[in-house]
């Protein structure tokens, strides 16, 4: 560990610091940003123009991550035919559990779970709408679906501002091209609605099929943008849209188109990933507190226990 620190320290001391000249790529980006692309922000010009191919690869990086999260958090589906892996899996699960004695931490956790289920105060199966509906002093107000009226009102006020801010980042910003942060902000907007109002309100919008479709559409749009550069201008990431004056919404040629598709893809991708994580069930392992062998598939409500 110390060795690594020393090695990296030596490296840091050796590299040129703030008095070094600007590398040619950076200087060239500054020079062409305004005249050739009409963008007043060279960083965007680099992200979507000069090194647009890196951003292209990055889009699919995020796509791979989102699909990986969806694959890992999926619930059981019907399968046809014999799958040796399921047999192996069942065998490994059964071999695993009895062989290891439960340690102190695990026993405490299971005892707490049992207490929670037996206590009549916790036992009300009807999910509450909001904590405002309960009398003061009841335990576990967090089991309600939505949040208190204060939170809901505050979020209801903040949401439109945030949504517009996100879209502004993409459309305008300093000049077009804020796809990534815009996408993150829009995913944040969805999260806010979920946090304030609970799962039922958001279930209509956050349907996996719908969001995945939109995300793949965004990714396809990005591939098409780059491909059309190849077809129309002879090179993969070349600009094929006519340029507009800087600081207008259409300036930057394909940078704007790329960035808008990026917004769709990143926003929906992050939303899919987050809601997949939240809605992860317990399908794949038998839960010993229930009857043995029964698969226990509950999706969590606003609180989140299974």
């Amino acid at each position: 560990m110390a060795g690594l620190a020393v090695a990296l320290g030596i490296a840091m001391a050796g590299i040129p610091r703030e008095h070094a000249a600007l590398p040619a790529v950076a200087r060239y980006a500054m020079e062409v940003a305004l005249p050739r692309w009409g963008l007043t922000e060279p960083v965007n010009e680099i992200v979507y123009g000069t090194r647009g191919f890196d951003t292209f690869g990055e889009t699919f990086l995020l796509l791979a991550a989102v699909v990986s999260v969806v694959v890992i958090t999926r619930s059981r589906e019907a399968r046809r035919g014999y799958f040796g892996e399921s047999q192996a899996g069942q065998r490994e699960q059964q071999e695993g559990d009895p062989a290891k004695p439960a340690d102190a931490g695990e026993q405490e956790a299971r005892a707490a779970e049992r207490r929670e289920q037996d206590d009549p105060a916790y036992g009300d199966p009807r999910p509450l709408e909001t904590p405002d509906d309960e009398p003061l002093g009841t335990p576990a107000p967090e089991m309600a679906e939505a949040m208190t009226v204060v939170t809901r009102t505050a979020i209801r006020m903040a949401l439109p501002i945030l949504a517009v801010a996100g879209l502004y980042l993409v459309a305008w910003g300093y000049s077009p091209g804020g796809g990534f942060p815009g996408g993150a902000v829009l995913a944040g907007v969805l999260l806010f609605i979920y946090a304030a109002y609970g799962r039922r309100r958001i279930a209509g919008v956050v349907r996996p099929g719908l969001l995945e479709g939109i995300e793949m559409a965004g990714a396809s749009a990005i591939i098409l943008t780059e491909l059309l550069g190849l077809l129309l201008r002879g090179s993969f990431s070349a600009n094929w849209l006519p340029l507009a004056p800087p600081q207008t919404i259409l300036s930057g040629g394909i940078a704007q188109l790329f960035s808008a598709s990026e917004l769709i893809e990143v926003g929906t991708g992050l939303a899919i990933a987050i809601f997949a994580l939240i809605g992860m069930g317990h399908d794949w392992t038998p839960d010993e507190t229930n009857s043995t062998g029964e698969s226990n598939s509950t999706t969590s409500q606003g609180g989140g226990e299974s």
Partner: protein
Amino acid sequence: MTIPALASLLPLPVAIPLAGGVTAPLLARVSRRLTVAVSLIALTGSAAILLLAAPTVFGGRVIAHYMGHWTPVHGQVLGVAFAADPFGLLVALAAAIIGGILLLYTLSELGGLGRRELGGYACLFQLLIAAVIGAALTADLINLFVWFEVAALSSYGLAGFFLERPIALESAFKLLVLTTLASFAVFIGAGLEYAQHGALNFAQLHHALAGHVTAPDTIALGLMLAGFATKAGLVPFHGWLPDVHTAAPGPVNALFSAIMDSIGVVAIARLVFQVYGTGSTPVLGLLMTLGIVSALLGAIMALAQDDLKRLLAYDTISQIGIIVVGFAAGNPAGVAGAVYHLVNHAAFKALLFLAAGAVVHRTGLTSLSQMGGLARSMPVVAAAFVLGSLSIAGIPPLNGYVSLSLIHEGLQQDHQTIPYLLTLASQVITAAALGRAAWLAFFRPRGQDYEWRERLRPGMLTGLVSLGACCVAFGAAGPLVLRRLMAPAAAGLLAPARYASAVLAGSGPIPVLRVPFDYGSPAELASVAATVAVAAVLAWVYLRIREPLPVRALRALHTGSANDYAAYAVTGILAVVAVLSLA
């Protein structure tokens, strides 16, 4: 087609599988067959475009294309470059073709999966193949890093695919920790390089480094080597390999071993030969050491395993070690042999893993001690496994013989006797391990018979047969393949100055390299015969004795805890950086 037009088509082999991956989840909801068809069309299209460029490139040229027409200005590269030299094109072709075969096999074997699962699986599979093609063809450091990351993220989802197996998730966690550490190492190394020279293009870096290699440069090289070695699976960065291969589905194992590990090897070869040059740092000696240690450790651990796929995983570590030994020899025979072995490894390791995966998929058994007598119930799978084992052992006329002989010749030319003997020793142990596995799984007579007979779907059969045919073809047509494909690849690697000027100019020739190869050389044939004989004896002995102490000690070192594997990897990073800087 003119060379610039041909070069501008180079990004398409990456974009088409990406498009296939993007449409896969949506198609899977509609129809499974449609998913298979579209994916295969995507990979065939990608391979077709690569084949279009093949005659020009393998004839001895490097063609380069700058994305968006951002051509270099006064030797300063502004945009991202894609350069197809024979080495990169060979690896990309291997990835596309073998990836296509694997895709057909896997979607047919796992065709019974639920719709959404299948869509996600097909998507990740194609993204991984596209990333490998991209990494093989790129000539830019950060672009290489981006494709490396895309491959890594796809591998996380594929490793943990069968969620009902607890070991799948455990192995996915270890894969995550080690690959994330590796990506940090590569990223910091790339950042150091950019800060030092203001350049990311391989050609421009080559010119900048040809003069004078400073301390931050060597530290950056060490970091990047360590990062890519983790992906390749060299010791001591190999902690994730055996675990991930035990738990993932068979075709995914084939994909990882055959195709994903080659990203690491390609990146190491490019950095060492084409960017930094071999003269300025003791990097070849370091690679030789890492390669030999990996070869020996992989072989010994493979002999001791009980789980079939874990055994094959350790064999992958061993083979990658031999490939790196070939690169570290540094002369035309060694480098050509290493490139040949990389392609051969893709073919025979895919064949072996597909056979092992088929066994697990049909029987649900994973450990060798429980299997036995499968040759009667699964004849085609048994034949595939035997063919793969014979290829690894290096028996003529299969493909392993040609590549291993070339590597031996490379080592002998430079009078490196100790590495040569150690490589032979690892080959003997590997052959013994595979022989033992084949005996225990397929040919050992079992008490009770299995109740069913094999039922291979057409896709699976096609896959096994085509891979087996590749093994035979690459072996029988050895000298032809050597002259046409491998020698140009080695020439591209060993002539970095020509590569650099070609990339900056957009296209350029590379010198023709003659790699003499005597197919029926008596010394080689004798050593093969001796190898097989000693291996058979070793396997017979090992089946009867208890585990010897050194082997038990080695197995105890592989504790299985993610912290420990991370500690080994960090120690490895430090050792690599120290050796490069201080020697």
